């Protein structure tokens, strides 16, 4: 899939997979539909992070801040104002992208780890405000029971709505990565000095990547509210940011759909292992260590390398 989203060779499996996803809600129980929807939302968040981390090489350590900003903006407009719902849908991602622009503008002048730390400080600032501003955000309780339009009231309709939006977002993300902009971004990741020398405005490209990624994180945030109908400060907490980071690694950094696979693994682990034992983070930790030792490119990265290796191997023999 990493080679051609629109190629004939990958078209058939992708289309088959899509058809399965389309008919699934009619077959499986409501709870599983809900989990799938959650996977879509978290997957979109991980995809948006991978744009800056995997392709941009930036230490985007506090990506969830933007996810949370999108979710909170959406929730606050729905509960505190009488504006129509579509305004909230537009405002969530835009708010996230605006905050992304401000934070990104402050961060891009710093290097590597310092970039990440400044972002964590700024993100923690947002978290602390959301955590303490009881009169507006509900403090550590958050906001619950956010009203949804009748169209999105059932989990099945939310499922289709989110699936369609996810597909649109994925296509846009794919086109961005295939565009000259995406290529420049990867070039900056691999050799920033050389890019600077040939006249690429490195900081501007990084900033643009951050704004795009935060916009998609904002979309994921609003969609989270559509599924959960609540917001709480943990959405903005740095632990969740690291978790999303791990989803990217789990699935595979340098593959296009890897992060979604990682998100699916993480969400299912939490749901199914979490239902079985309260010590599910222990199991996630052990899996993570196994992954670091044996599959450092992530599951999908490993599979792709393996299949390529096989092809090269058989060609050599023939």
């Amino acid at each position: 899939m990493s080679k051609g989203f629109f190629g004939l060779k990958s078209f058939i499996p992708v289309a088959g997979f899509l058809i399965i996803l389309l008919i699934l809600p009619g077959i499986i129980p409501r709870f599983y539909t809900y989990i799938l929807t959650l996977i879509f939302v978290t997957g979109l968040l991980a995809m948006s992070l991978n744009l800056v981390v995997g392709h941009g090489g930036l230490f985007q350590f506090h990506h969830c801040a933007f996810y949370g900003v999108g979710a909170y903006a959406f929730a606050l407009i729905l509960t505190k104002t009488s504006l129509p719902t579509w305004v909230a849908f537009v405002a969530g991602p835009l708010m996230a992208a605006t905050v992304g622009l401000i934070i990104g503008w402050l961060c891009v002048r710093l290097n590597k780890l310092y970039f990440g730390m400044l972002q964590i400080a700024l993100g923690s600032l947002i978290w602390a405000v959301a955590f303490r501003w009881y009169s507006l955000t509900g403090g550590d309780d958050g906001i619950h029971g956010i009203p949804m339009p009748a169209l999105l009231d059932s989990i099945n309709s939310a499922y289709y709505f989110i699936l369609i939006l996810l597909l649109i977002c994925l296509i846009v993300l794919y086109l961005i990565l295939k565009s000259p902009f995406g290529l420049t971004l990867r070039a900056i990741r691999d050799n920033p000095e050389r890019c600077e020398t040939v006249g690429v405005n490195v900081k501007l490209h990084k900033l643009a990547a951050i704004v795009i990624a935060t916009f998609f994180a904002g979309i994921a945030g609003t969609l989270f509210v559509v599924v959960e109908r609540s917001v709480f400060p943990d959405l903005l907490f740095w632990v969740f940011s690291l978790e999303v980071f791990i989803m990217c690694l789990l699935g595979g950094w340098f593959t296009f759909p890897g992060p979604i696979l990682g998100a699916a693994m993480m969400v299912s682990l939490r749901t199914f292992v979490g239902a079985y034992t309260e010590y599910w983070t222990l199991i996630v930790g052990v899996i993570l260590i196994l992954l670091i030792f044996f599959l450092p490119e992530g599951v999908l990265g490993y599979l792709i390398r393996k299949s390529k290796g096989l092809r090269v191997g058989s060609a050599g023999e023939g």
Partner: protein
Amino acid sequence: MDLGQTITIPALCSHLLVGLSRAMILFVVTSGMSFVLGVLRVPNVAHGSLYMIGAFSAFSISTLLGGGSTGFLVALVLAPLVVALVSLIAERSLFCHLYEREHLMLLLFTFALMLILGDLVKMVWGPDYRSIMAPELLRGSATVFGAPFPRYNLFLLIIGPLVAIGLWLFSNKTKIGKIARAAAVDREMVGAIGINVSRVFAFAFVFGCFLAGLGGALVSPMVSITIGMDHDIVMDAFLIVTIGGLGNMWGALVGSLIFGITQSFGVLLLPQFAIVFPYLAVVVILIWRPTGMLKSVW
């Protein structure tokens, strides 16, 4: 939003002292993190978990010894050693095999370690809140500048500088301390002159974790010991180390002072948003001096 108490000179002084004693705890914890960061170049995300284990071990040891003054003092010595043992096991069994790998992998390993240690603590000590009493000599409060001030915080104000002096002596006057400092600056060279770098790393990691455990043991009579205290401290510790200058021990001290004092003055000014102030200070400092206040070893 209500403002804090009226700002008087005694109130200012007592907040300053509370901030300073909070900074001492932060310093003990962050100096350990800074040490690991300097020598191994790895932000140890599990540092907070080791701090938490230190606090829980202090609780168990002092309860086991009857909860008296001697119990607490023994806990203060033994709990950091327990933490050092835990970190030694983690380092020698798993972590040491990753030194040749990419940096991000090391970071992720420490995150995995945090997840595992967090759940192990939950298994061993359970999810309840725990608390221990300070020894009798350090209970109650003394009057400083006309304001009542907890004795235990005064004790911390003595311990903090002692730890700083001890660390300075250790890293400047002992052989292993000098080697560790050299490894922080140029690890290839240290390896080239025939020193076992892996062992130096192991030592630095365990020593840093020991300091985390000491911080946890020191903080144990002041707070309710509970799971989740690892998450609370580790990000603050990172930010402190960053604004101080990565790997610089004195930077950890400067950063801790900034963090502790802005927080306690925040309580004085705007109690509801007190936790916002230290983050604001970090943002201002990083924008003003992008690589921290003091020279970083990176």
